[in-house]
């Protein structure tokens, strides 16, 4: 035997109120309260179901297409908005600040430790007399270690510790606008004038017209590829030493 509350729950939750369990139907026949409840619920459902249903307007599709097109064009032009420019500007500013901070912090310059380490190595090479140069780009145009440079034993044959920027500038002032000099270049003379050979580099470029030494200021960025040209052919060699 089920109670009124359970019957009312059956009535309220039935997908089809006409199809109640047999016990609930039997209870309804005998209980006036539940019968009244069932009648009210049925009336309410009918009232709600009979409310006027509104339809979409006749221009619904046209309006929808227009809104879709508008949304698509807004997305395409999103990068033109002021918000995009603001974001781009902020990103550029952050990048510039990061670069400046790195430069100020000495990320792109040689540390004192590296400089003293290199000086120590050069001293050892000089003490051994014919110490092997770090690398050489002579001969068959391939990087080859173990060759010495008789002219400047403390400097590699082709990638040499050159004079400082100030020394290069002074040399430039003395010799006129001939920063690219042909023929053998005597670094020992500049070294004898108290130049620090680790402050710059000299790149030897060999070709049909002889060899050229190009002094240039450098930054220490570790191992990097060196592009040089020989007999009109560009050759890239990976130098495993920073300069």
């Amino acid at each position: 035997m089920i109670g009124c509350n359970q019957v009312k729950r059956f009535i309220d939750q039935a997908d089809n109120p006409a199809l109640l369990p047999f016990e609930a139907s039997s209870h309804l026949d005998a209980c006036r309260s539940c019968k009244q409840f069932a009648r009210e619920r049925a009336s309410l459902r009918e009232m709600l179901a009979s409310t006027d249903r509104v339809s979409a307007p006749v221009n619904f599709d046209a309006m929808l297409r227009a809104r879709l097109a508008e949304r698509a064009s807004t997305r395409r032009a999103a990068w033109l908005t002021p918000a995009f420019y603001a974001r781009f500007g902020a990103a550029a500013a952050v990048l510039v600040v990061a670069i400046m901070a790195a430069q100020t912090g000495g990320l792109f310059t040689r540390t004192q430790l590296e400089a003293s380490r290199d000086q120590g190595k050069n001293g050892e090479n000089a003490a051994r007399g014919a110490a092997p140069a770090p690398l050489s780009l002579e001969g068959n145009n391939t990087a080859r270690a173990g060759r010495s440079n008789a002219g400047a034993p403390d400097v590699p044959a082709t990638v040499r510790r050159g004079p400082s920027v100030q020394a290069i500038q002074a040399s430039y002032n003395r010799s006129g606008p001939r920063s690219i000099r042909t023929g053998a270049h005597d670094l020992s003379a500049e070294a004898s004038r108290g130049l620090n050979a680790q402050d710059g580099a000299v790149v030897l470029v060999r070709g049909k017209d002889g060899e050229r030494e190009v002094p240039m200021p450098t930054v220490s960025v570790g191992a990097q590829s060196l592009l040089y040209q020989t007999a009109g052919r560009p050759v890239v060699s990976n130098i495993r030493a920073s300069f």
Partner: protein
Amino acid sequence: MATVTHEAHAIGISGSRSVETANDHELIAAIRDGDEAAFQEIVRRYRNPITNFVYRMIDDYERAVELSQETFIRVYTSASRYQANYSFSTYIYRIASNLAISELRRRKRRKLVSLFSPFTNDEGEAIEIDPPDTNPLQDESLIENERRTAVARAIKSLPEKYRAAIVLRDVEGLSYDRIAQVLSLSEGTVKSRINRARNLLKEKLSAYI
């Protein structure tokens, strides 16, 4: 909208079926592939039920049409993310329901005060003071008209959590389990809310029952 009679292969459906006979999942798959005809067919099938549902929720026809269109725009733009775990009708009713509830909450934040509901209950929700007109009516159509107006007003006065459930159940005719999916609630909670909504409506519409 013009009747869509594209062949099945146009929407990636095997055989000789047209978009009109394709089921909702097939149409969504076709929309995902960029088939405009499939989207038009989806709109044709659901524009009236969705517009009616949103209208019953917010009681503002112009805004209901806008939200209904927004529903279809979301269906179109997120077709690639649609997962066929539930029926598509559940999915689209869910979008429409969320939009309608957001609209109701937005209006609530604006503190729109209806002339018909200047009072609030303990929960801060509007209570409609709508005494039934006890004067004798002269015409059957007038009676029917007033009854419909009273029903619409009674639905509008319900708290939103009850309103969504009762509209989906007694106006749109969805089953309890589908309402539970649309509203992301348990079936028991849905049944409870519908029962409370009916009790509230019975009080408001006692003159017409």
